[in-house]
């Protein structure tokens, strides 16, 4: 990676981190609920009555109730984990391959 690209990547990552972190500190005491939930509240507001969903999520039907918060975060982590695993695996291979190719190229030149 060229040093110019390195700088761009570093700046961008710091920027992304700040955008995500600042609200957390700036808005002390905010609830940070999901915006999907805010959407369903809006439905109730527009309709004037509490909206009754006609289908409950399949997991909630199986376990007869809402998925416990801890388990839900576990499942979200699994999703992240699968993704990161695949990304890291291929990225690792690419990085090593480039190293190896660069080295081979260097030897030919010599």
């Amino acid at each position, binding site marked *: *990676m*060229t040093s110019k*690209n390195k700088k*761009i*990547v570093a700046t*961008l*990552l710091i*920027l*992304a981190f700040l*955008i*995500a972190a600042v*609200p*957390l500190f700036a*808005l002390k005491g*905010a*609830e*940070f*609920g*999901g*915006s*999907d939930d*805010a*959407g*369903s509240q*809006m*439905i109730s*507001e*527009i*309709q*004037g009555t509490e*909206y009754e*969903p*006609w*289908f*409950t*999520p*399949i*997991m*909630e039907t199986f376990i007869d109730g*809402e*998925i416990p918060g801890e388990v*839900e975060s576990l*499942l*979200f*982590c699994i*999703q*992240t984990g*699968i*993704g*990161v*695993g*695949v*990304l890291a695996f*291929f*990225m690792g*291979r*690419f*990085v090593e*391959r*480039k190293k190896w190719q660069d080295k081979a190229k260097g030897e030919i030149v010599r």
Partner: protein
Amino acid sequence: MSKKEKRVMKLVIAFALAFGIVPSAYGMHIMEGYLPVGYCIAWGAVCVPFLAAGFFSIRKRLQENRKTITILAMSGAFIFVISSLKIPSVTGSCSHMTGTGLGALLFGPSAVGILGMIVLIFQAILLAHGGLTTLGANTFSMAIAGPFVSFGIYKLLKMLKVNKLVSIFLAAMIGDLFTYCVTAIQLALAYPSETGGVFASTVKFLGVFAPTQLPLAIIEGILTTVIIITLQTYALPELKAVGFSKEVQ
């Protein structure tokens, strides 16, 4: 596309028109059971031709060059990671990004339809996030409308000779925002406001989603750009194989 593929495409488009037009049509992940049945079926039907096109395009790419499977897997993995991260936003509520921009730029927008739907099914079944009944509507907004806009914007900016990194950033960001606009419209169609109709509803739903999503869309743009810079450095042969990079660096 082969003859057989063309025939299948015609069939599914006819199917989509038959079911898609009937109800006048109702939107980010819409929760399970929050869309009337007619709308669930209609949005599902609208997705089918896109998904079929996506399937064929993935198959064609893989037949041409097996190498591209790594980029496909990484695009899918990126959606998995990005859409599982709920990030706090300036409005005091959380939302998550879509991650579909990367795949759209690298692999073409129709292929992302398949990847996005896999993620949505995973979330709908295991996480009670989104839903099976609203899968069609969510697939349309996140895995079809967003990626197509990203792809379009990238092509447009490329024609205008805008800096490549800037185009990638803008394409991913606007695609993410557009996903939420489509969701707002989908919800508004289903729940028009009594006084102002569909339009007033759209404005209300956008008011819920848009301010929360804007900073996240910027993050998505940033992350997509970072990934592409990294791939260009280490995986140039693969990017050439999918037709994303032509110039040798």
